[in-house]
């Protein structure tokens, strides 16, 4: 099986007034044809990893191979095969139309004119942006702009595409359009690989063949969402409603040994991941001893989010 | 609004302006930048003079005429640039214009306060240029004979007039996008051409002379030159020789008042238009 990405012992530090270690000793392998997700909170190092893989940033140590080529020495062999889109980016020139902007970026990859035109038309249709094709970029909305950016990534027909938080801040419908396209794109041919970062748990669970959970520059776990959830089987998940009391329920239960927790509704509802179910009595006494009352307590099916909470020790907010 | 409130705004804005002017990562670059550009612009004129006249001594009065005109015009160019920059920067870069706008202070006083640091820096450039002119280029200027009271009066009126123009420009800047940063240069260029800055008004076509005679800067430059060169040397070439200094002072006062009134009207109008069109917090660069 060929690997689209092979990352080993990769570290990246930023030296400035104080040194920030954005990635530490990361090992990762992504197979060709995979839809792979990087899941992590803000500042985890997701964007840094994408920048290294897309040849914008050099590793401090370790190696990374993209489609078999080394990011340090063989960047020029990697670039024709990849593309990158980040959510919230503002690319292009405001006085060009959407179509012109897409055409311009396709030219940087040498796409022949007629092929570019055909692809742009198809993609505009797929993303419901045909009616804005001839609108100047400075006049379109944020969501339309983001769809244009994603089209820009696919218009060069890359073998490997990096999408950094592609649905950041988008409404439900637009996000769904994008997700569906992403999935279909990877499935359409078996030599297409897609690496996606997100901090939406649902997105990762729904879309990805495999997910790596990353926090503070290290990869905590990696596997198919189902497997990550299965790893949780020894643990149990509860949703607990309480009356409000001081300190907040979340901080009260977080002090209990063997319990990771995340807030679902502020001051009222928390999600608990227990390493051992017997810890539930400690949770109850932690609430009651602080003057709170339990309104309900339900055991629930584990989700990817629970796996995440247990590993990172907190939720994604 | 109380005078004390205006004073407070003024002090605060002047301090802020200075911070922004001097907050450069490399002070030496800042110094070169503030001083080298205007001085280079003056030196271009010096070389043009020398190419034609072969030496300052061949026509010292004309040399002094151009040199002083060019040096004192720095005040106009710098303040006009400063006034438009205040609006652009506060609106687009720091995006603080809207807060300022709703704060209970006079924007005009704020703009004047911010312009102070420009005035101060320009004064330094002017003094350096004149010293350079005297010491290196042979500018015939005798500080002992200067008519200081006339100079002071002319400067006071001239600077007020320049500030009035600056405020009007700031008002217009409210309404324009960033790309037309040319507005200050455009209007500045017109003044440069029409106010007898480099050459006597009489060289211009007569319609242009008439326009020049309606702009207070023409009289300001004339009085500055006359105060620095008492006697008839400047009057003889300027084309305003028929008018006594008192008359010119009167023209300067009247035209300055007219410009102040116009500036107030323009600013008010621009202010209303900007609010109505929602342009106070627009950003035009992306």
């Amino acid at each position, binding site marked *: 099986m060929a690997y689209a990405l092979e990352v080993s012992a990769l570290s990246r530090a930023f030296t400035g007034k104080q040194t920030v270690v954005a990635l530490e000793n990361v090992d990762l392998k992504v197979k060709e044809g995979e839809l792979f997700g990087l899941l992590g909170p803000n500042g985890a190092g997701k964007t840094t990893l994408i*920048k290294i893989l897309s040849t914008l*940033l050099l590793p401090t140590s370790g190696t990374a191979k993209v489609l078999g080529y080394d990011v340090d020495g063989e960047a020029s062999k990697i670039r024709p095969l990849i593309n990158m889109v980040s959510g919230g980016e503002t*690319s292009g020139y405001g006085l060009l139309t959407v179509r012109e902007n897409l055409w311009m970026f396709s030219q*940087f990859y040498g796409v022949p004119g007629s092929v570019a035109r055909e692809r742009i038309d198809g993609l505009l249709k797929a993303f419901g942006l045909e009616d804005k094709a001839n609108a100047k970029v400075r006049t379109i909305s944020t969501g339309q702009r983001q769809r244009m950016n994603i089209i820009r990534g696919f218009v060069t027909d890359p073998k490997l595409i990096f999408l950094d938080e592609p649905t950041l801040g988008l409404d439900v419908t637009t996000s769904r359009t994008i997700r569906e396209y992403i999935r279909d794109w990877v499935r359409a041919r078996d030599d297409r690989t897609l690496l996606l970062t997100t901090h939406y748990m649902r997105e990762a669970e729904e879309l990805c063949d495999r997910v790596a959970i990353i926090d503070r520059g290290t990869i905590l776990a990696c596997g198919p969402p189902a497997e990550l959830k299965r790893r949780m089987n020894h643990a149990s998940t509860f949703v607990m409603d309480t009356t409000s009391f001081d300190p907040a329920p979340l901080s009260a239960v977080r002090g209990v040994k063997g319990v990771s927790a995340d807030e679902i509704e502020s001051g009222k509802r928390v999600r608990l991941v227990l390493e051992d179910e017997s810890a539930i009595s400690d949770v109850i006494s932690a609430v009651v001893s602080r003057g709170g009352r339990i309104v309900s307590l339900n055991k629930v099916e584990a989700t990817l989010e629970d796996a995440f909470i247990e590993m990172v020790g907190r939720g994604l907010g | 609004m109380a005078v004390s409130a205006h004073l407070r705004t003024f002090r605060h804005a002047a301090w802020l302006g200075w911070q922004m002017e001097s907050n450069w990562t490399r002070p030496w670059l800042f110094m070169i930048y503030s001083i080298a550009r205007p001085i280079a612009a003056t*030196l*271009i004129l010096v070389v043009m003079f020398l190419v034609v006249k072969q030496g300052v001594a061949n026509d010292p009065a004309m040399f002094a005429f151009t040199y002083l005109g060019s040096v004192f015009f720095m005040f106009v160019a710098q303040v006009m640039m400063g006034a438009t920059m205040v609006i652009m920067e506060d609106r687009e870069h720091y995006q603080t214009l809207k807060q300022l706008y709703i704060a209970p202070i006079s924007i005009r006083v704020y703009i004047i306060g911010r312009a102070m640091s420009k005035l101060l820096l320009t004064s330094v450039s002017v003094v350096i240029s004149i010293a350079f002119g005297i010491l290196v280029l042979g500018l015939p200027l005798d500080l002992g004979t200067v008519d200081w009271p006339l100079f002071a009066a002319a400067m006071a009126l001239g600077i007020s007039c320049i500030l009035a123009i600056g405020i009007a420009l700031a008002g217009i800047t409210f309404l324009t996008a960033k790309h037309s940063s040319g507005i200050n240069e455009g209007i500045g260029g017109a003044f440069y051409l029409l106010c007898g800055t480099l050459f006597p008004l009489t060289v211009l076509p007569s319609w242009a002379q008439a326009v020049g005679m309606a702009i207070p800067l023409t009289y300001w430059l004339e009085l500055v030159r006359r105060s620095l060169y008492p006697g008839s040397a400047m009057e003889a070439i300027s084309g305003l020789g028929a008018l006594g200094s008192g008359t010119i002072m009167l023209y300067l006062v009247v035209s300055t008042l007219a410009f102040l009134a116009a500036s107030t009207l323009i600013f008010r109008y621009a202010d209303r238009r900007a609010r109505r069109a929602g342009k106070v917090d627009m950003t035009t660069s992306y």
Partner: protein
Amino acid sequence: MPLNLRAAVGRAYPRVIGALREPSWTFFDVLLPLLGIAAYIYYYRALGAASSFEGFVVLGGAMTAFWLNVLWGMASQFYWEKEIGNLQLFLVSPMSRMALLAGMALGGMFSAGVRALSTLFLGLIIFDVHMTVEEPLFLAAVFLVTLIAIYGMGMMFASLFMLYGRDAWNISNLLQEPIYLVSGFYFPVRALGPWVSAAASIIPITLGLDAMRQLLFGEQALGLLPVATELVILCVLAVAFLVLARYALRYMERLGRKEGRLTLRWQ
């Protein structure tokens, strides 16, 4: 069509379109230099200079369009592209960075050319300036090589300023009036003396202007060197700046990747 040609055309496109789509900017860009030109022409008239001096002013005024474009459309451009988020997308693409810069230069030359031509045309008409083109081919050669050389210089600065944003802006600002002075935009550069004019000749616009003045105004241009010599030096400068630009680009891109400064934005 090969990749890099496509890329250059792609990058030139917004510049050409921009000049056509926003004619109001062009209007301003033509009007402003005319005011300056008028002031200098009347100044020469007041000094009683020969009429050819007025021609020098019009020529210099027209050429400022290209110089300003080199400063603001080339040298500080990568910094600006970084600010608006385009630089990283340019750099992940497989095109040669020289092709990108060449596209910027070609597009810029077009819009600057429109401005220069209008300035020249209006200047000649309004101020009744006469020039005689006796050796059009020679003139065209000098003009083209000058353009290549100054844009090559702009390409070099663009690479150097890729990582030094604010300074790029400040230095571009600094290179206006001081360069108009030392490069002799409005007078024969020989007036500055042999040392200054020799030093200023490292900036290609200096010899370019001098050679064009000689070709348009003959003896009165007080040329620095024979035109043919100047053309040879300009060719050398053009090649040198292009080669330097290429190395500067490689070096700065690598340094940027190492230090993480190609994408200063939050993304």
